[in-house]
C-alpha cells in the first residue's frame, strides 16, 4: 500500500450523510483526500500527495448504490438466452481495456460493471437470488467488474420454511434458519416474493390474498411476511425484509399493498418496485393510479422504505421469481415467447419480454404512477431510485429519470407526449416538486447505504471507501448524471466523462457484500435430513464456502456488521 494521497481539490461536496450541512452545495468548497482506497482525514502538511485533481467547483458525491437491480443469476441468464435479438442489436467489441459483451436490458456481466461504473454507480444489489441458485449467481456476479455487489436470498415460498411454520415452529427456529441461509448463500438480505403465492401456484392455485390460507400448508401470506420481517429484526440484519407484495400488476392491488404495510405493524421493511403495487380500479378502464394513497401510507410509516420500479418506454423483459404473476401475464409477452420454471421446492422464475408503449393507456399510466410515488413520498431517505432493472427498463435510464424528478418543465413536456388520457387520470401534471441535488444524493447514495447497513459507503467521511463521483454541474441533469467527469472506485480512477479510463491496473473488481448474523448451529440437525430426504443437493454442497468467492481473485468479501441494541434503529 502506498502512503501517498490523492487530493481532489475544490469540489462542491454533496454529502448528505456527511458532517453537518454536508449536503449544502452553497457551503465552501471542500478538499477530499483519498488514501489506500479510503477517504482520509486532511493529512499533515508534509504528507506525500501523488496526484492533485482540480475540481473547479464541480459537484462531488459518493458512489451511487443501486438497491434493486436484477444483474445476475439464473433468471437473468435465461433472459439473455431467450432474447438473442437484443444481444445482436447491442454488442461491443473488446478494446484492450474492456472485454466484449452485449445486451441493453440484460447486459452481459462485464458490460454490466462497465456501464454502472461509467454512470457513477459503484455498487448494485441483485435482489432475487434463490438459495438453490446461489452458487450460479455468485459465479456470475464474480464476472461483474469494478462495482461492489450483494444479493438478497429469496425466502417465503421455500417448502422448508412453510412446512416448519405449518408445524408450529417458534420464531427462534425461523431466525436460526434465516441466519443459516444468509451464511450458506453468502447473502446480505432476504427478499420475500409474493409470500406463499409462488408455492401455491405449484399446487395449481392462481392467486393468493394476504389472508388467504395456503392450499397445502394452511398458513397465510401475512404470517410468512411478519415472521420473516421479525426474523431479520431479531437477528439485527441491517437491511430489513425486502418485500415484493402479493398480486403484482393486478388492478386494485393497492389494497393488498396497504394491508401489507399495516400487517408489518411497525416492523422495519423495504417495499420494492412499489409502482407495480399501486394500482386502483377506478375509471372506465378499471385501472387507475393509487399512488397518492400508497404514498400517504408510506409517509405515515417511518418503518417502511421503498424503491419505485419506475417504468421507461421501450422494449425490456420482466424477470421475476413470481411465477404465479408471470404465468398470468404470459399472454402479454412481446415478442411472443416466455419462460416459467418451478424451482427446487424453493421458488420460481418467470420471464416475460415486454414493450412499454407511451401511447398505451396502461403503460403510460404506469409511468405516471411511478413518478407520482417519487414526488409524493416526502422523505428522500426512504425512497430509492430503481427501475427494478430490467422489469421497468434498463438501469441505464437512471440519468433520464433523475432529470424527470429534478426538472418539472421537462417532466410536463414528457407527460404531454404520452397517451393523453393519462394527464386527465393523473395528478402528475399538477405536482410542483422538483428534487434537489441533495435529495438525489440521498435517494441514490446515502439512503440505500443506510438501509443496507453499509457504514463505509454512501458518504464521504474519513474512513469511507473512496468511491467518489465528480459531476459537471450541467443544467441538463440527464447529461450531467449520464457522464460524470470522474469516477473513483476504491480510490482509483475508473471512468472519465462517462467512459472507462485506463489506469494501468485493468478495470479491477469490487467486493461481494454479505451479512453474517449469529445463530444456533443446531438448526443444521434439522436441515441435514431435509436436504437428504427432500432436496436433490446435499447440505454440504448447497453451502457456499468463502473460498469459492475469494479464490477466484475477483474481489473480496465485505461483511456488513449486524445491528446491536445500542445502534440507532433504521
Amino acid at each position: 500500500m502506498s502512503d501517498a494521497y490523492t487530493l481532489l481539490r475544490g469540489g462542491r461536496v454533496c454529502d448528505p450523510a456527511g458532517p453537518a450541512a454536508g449536503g449544502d452545495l452553497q457551503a465552501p468548497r471542500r478538499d477530499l483526500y483519498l488514501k489506500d482506497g479510503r477517504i482520509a482525514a486532511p493529512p499533515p502538511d508534509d504528507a506525500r500527495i501523488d496526484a492533485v485533481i482540480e475540481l473547479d467547483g464541480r459537484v462531488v458525491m459518493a458512489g451511487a448504490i443501486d438497491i434493486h437491480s436484477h444483474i445476475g443469476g439464473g433468471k437473468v441468464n435465461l433472459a439473455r438466452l431467450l432474447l438473442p435479438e437484443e444481444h445482436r442489436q447491442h454488442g461491443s467489441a473488446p478494446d484492450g481495456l474492456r472485454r466484449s459483451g452485449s445486451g441493453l436490458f440484460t447486459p452481459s456481466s462485464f458490460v454490466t460493471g462497465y456501464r454502472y461504473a461509467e454512470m457513477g454507480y459503484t455498487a448494485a444489489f441483485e435482489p432475487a437470488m434463490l438459495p438453490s441458485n446461489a452458487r450460479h449467481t455468485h459465479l456470475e456476479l464474480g464476472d461483474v467488474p469494478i462495482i461492489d455487489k450483494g444479493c438478497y436470498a429469496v425466502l417465503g415460498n421455500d417448502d422448508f420454511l412453510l412446512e416448519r411454520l405449518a408445524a408450529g415452529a417458534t420464531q427462534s427456529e425461523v431466525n436460526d434458519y434465516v441466519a443459516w441461509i444468509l451464511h450458506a448463500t453468502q447473502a446480505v438480505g432476504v427478499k420475500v416474493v409474493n409470500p406463499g403465492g409462488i408455492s401455491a401456484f405449484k399446487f395449481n392455485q392462481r392467486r393468493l390474498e394476504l389472508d388467504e390460507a395456503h392450499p397445502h400448508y394452511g398458513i397465510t401470506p401475512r404470517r410468512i411476511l411478519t415472521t420473516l420481517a421479525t426474523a431479520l429484526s431479531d437477528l439485527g440484519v441491517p437491511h430489513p425484509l425486502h418485500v415484493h407484495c402479493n398480486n403484482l400488476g393486478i388492478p386494485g392491488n393497492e389494497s393488498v399493498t396497504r394491508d401489507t404495510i399495516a400487517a408489518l405493524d411497525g416492523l422495519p421493511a423495504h417495499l420494492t418496485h412499489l409502482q407495480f403495487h399501486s394500482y386502483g380500479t377506478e375509471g372506465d378502464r378499471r385501472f387507475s393510479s393509487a399512488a397518492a394513497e400508497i404514498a400517504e401510507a408510506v409517509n405515515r410509516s417511518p418503518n417502511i422504505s421503498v424503491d419505485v420500479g419506475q417504468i421507461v418506454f421501450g422494449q425490456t423483459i420482466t424477470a421475476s421469481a413470481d411465477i404465479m404473476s408471470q404465468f398470468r401475464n404470459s399472454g402479454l409477452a412481446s415478442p411472443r415467447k416466455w419462460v416459467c420454471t418451478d424451482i427446487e421446492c424453493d421458488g420460481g422464475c418467470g420471464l416475460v419480454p415486454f414493450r412499454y408503449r407511451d401511447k398505451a393507456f396502461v403503460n403510460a399510466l404506469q409511468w405516471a404512477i411511478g413518478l407520482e410515488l417519487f414526488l409524493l413520498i416526502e422523505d428522500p431517505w426512504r425512497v430509492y431510485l430503481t427501475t427494478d432493472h430490467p422489469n421497468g427498463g434498463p438501469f441505464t435510464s437512471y440519468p433520464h429519470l433523475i432529470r424527470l424528478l429534478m426538472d418539472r418543465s421537462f417532466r410536463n413536456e414528457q407527460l404531454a407526449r404520452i397517451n393523453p388520457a393519462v394527464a386527465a387520470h393523473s395528478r402528475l401534471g399538477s405536482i410542483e416538486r422538483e428534487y434537489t441535488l441533495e435529495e438525489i444524493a440521498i435517494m441514490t447514495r446515502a439512503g440505500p447505504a443506510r438501509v443496507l447497513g453499509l457504514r463505509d459507503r454512501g458518504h464521504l467521511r474519513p474512513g469511507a471507501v473512496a468511491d467518489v463521483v465528480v459531476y459537471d454541474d450541467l443544467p441538463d441533469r440527464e447529461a450531467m448524471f449520464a457522464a460524470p467527469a470522474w469516477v473513483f472506485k476504491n480510490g482509483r480512477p475508473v471512468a472519465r466523462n462517462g467512459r472507462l479510463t485506463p489506469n494501468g491496473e485493468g478495470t479491477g473488481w469490487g467486493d461481494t457484500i454479505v451479512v453474517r448474523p449469529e445463530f444456533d448451529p443446531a438448526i443444521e440437525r434439522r436441515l441435514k435430513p431435509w436436504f437428504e430426504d427432500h432436496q436433490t443437493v446435499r447440505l454440504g454442497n448447497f453451502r457456499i464456502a468463502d473460498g469459492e468467492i475469494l479464490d477466484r481473485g475477483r474481489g473480496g468479501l465485505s461483511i456488513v456488521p449486524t445491528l446491536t441494541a445500542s445502534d440507532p434503529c433504521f
Partner: protein
Amino acid sequence: MDSEPGETDFPPSMGDVVCPFCAMACDDLAVMRDRGGRLRVTDNGCARARSLFALPALPAHCFIKGRAVPLDEALDAAAALLRNAASPAIGGLAADTEGISAALALAERLGAVVDHAASDSLFHGLRALQVSGAMTATFGELRNRADLFVLFGAEFDRHAPRLFDRIVRPPTALFREAAAVRGFLVGPGDGPAPEGFERLTADLTQAPAIAAALSQLVAGERPRGDRVGGIAMEDLVRVAAALREARFGVVGWIAATLDPAAGDVAVEAFNRLVVTANASTRCAGLALGGKGNALGANYVCAWQYGVPLRSRLGAGPPEHDPLRYRLKSLLAGGEVDALLWLSALNGAEVPDTRKPMIVLARPGQPLPRDPEVLIPVAVPGLDHAGSIHRGDGVAALPLRRLRSNTSGLPTAAAVLGALLDRLAGSPLPAPLRETAHV
C-alpha cells in the same frame, strides 16, 4: 496457492461427492481412496461414475506431433499455432466453470468461434427457447411433486443415469406417493418399462406430431387419423387424459435421441403441450441428458458475452449464429485453420480432423490421431476444485479435489491462462472481416 497437499491430506473415505461426469450431477456419492491415490465409488454412483472415478491419475507428458516435450515448449508451440490462425475455433469445452471461462477469454483474444462437443442436443432446446420460450421444472421440484411422467427418448439409463432412483421414484417425496408414480415411455422399444410405466413404441422423428396430437387432445380437440408416429390414437387419448388428471405432470425428453435435424421442432411441440396442460392443471417440461458440462459452458458464455455458444468472440461484438457457427459444420467445411479442443471432462470426443489441432485433455482421452500439440490436464472434481452446472439449469455444484496431484497435471484454466499470456503481446485480430451470411 498453499503448498501442494500430499496423499495423506485426503481422507480415505469421502461422502457427498459431486460427480462431474454427466448432467445429472449427482452429489451423494461415497468415494474411497486407496493408498496409491486410486478412487473407488462405493455408494450411489452409476456405472459411468464407477469407471471414470476409478481411472488412475497417471503421469502424462505433453506432446508435439507425437514427440514428448516439456509443458513450456508445448505452450509455445500452441501459442505460435494460434497466433498465426486466421479462422481459429475453440471446441470441446468439456470443463468446469473456470476452465470454460479461460477458454472463452482465449477465444475472445483470438477472434475464435466457440462451441461445445455436445451442442447439437443443447441447441434443440436452445433454438426452441429462442423461438417460443419454455415452461420447465427442476429435479428437486419434480422429485417431490410430479405424479405423472411422459418421457420421450431411448436408453434412459445411459443418458440420464439414476433418473428413476433420484427423481421419478425417490425413496421419499413431500407431496405425492413416491412409489405410486405413473408414466409413459415414448420411443423405440428398447427393453422392459419400469414399474408403473407403459411403453408406447414410436418413431422419435415423429415426436413433434405426437406432442401436437397430445396438445389437441389435452385441449379437448380430436386430431384426425387413427395413429400418430406409430401410436394408436386411443393410447394417446389415455396419455392426454393422464396429463389432464395429473396434479403435476412432466413432459420429459432425452435431447440426444430426438431427430438430429429437427430436435428443436420437437422441443417446441413439447413446450406447447406443457403450456396447454397448464391451462387447467400443473405440468412442466424437462430436458434430460448431456455430458461435459455442456449446459454450464453455454451459461458461462451467455453471462460473460450475452450470447450462447456457437458464437464468434472478440472479432467485433459477440456474434451468435446457431447454424453458421456450429463447429462440426465448420470443420466439415474446412473453415477452421486452427482448432483448440478442451476435454478435461468426459463427453468431448476429439474430432478426427487433419486441421492443426491443440488438444487439452484428461489423461486417457482417446485420440483419433496425434494432434499438433497435446497437453494433458487435470480432471475437475478429482484433481482440483471448481464448479459445474446441473442439466436442469438452476443448481451449480461445487467440485472438490479428492486426491493429491501426483501426476502434477495443470488445470485447464491454468494452461489456457498461460496461452493467453503468451498471446498478450500479439496484435489483436483485425476487427474487420468478410462476412458471409447463411
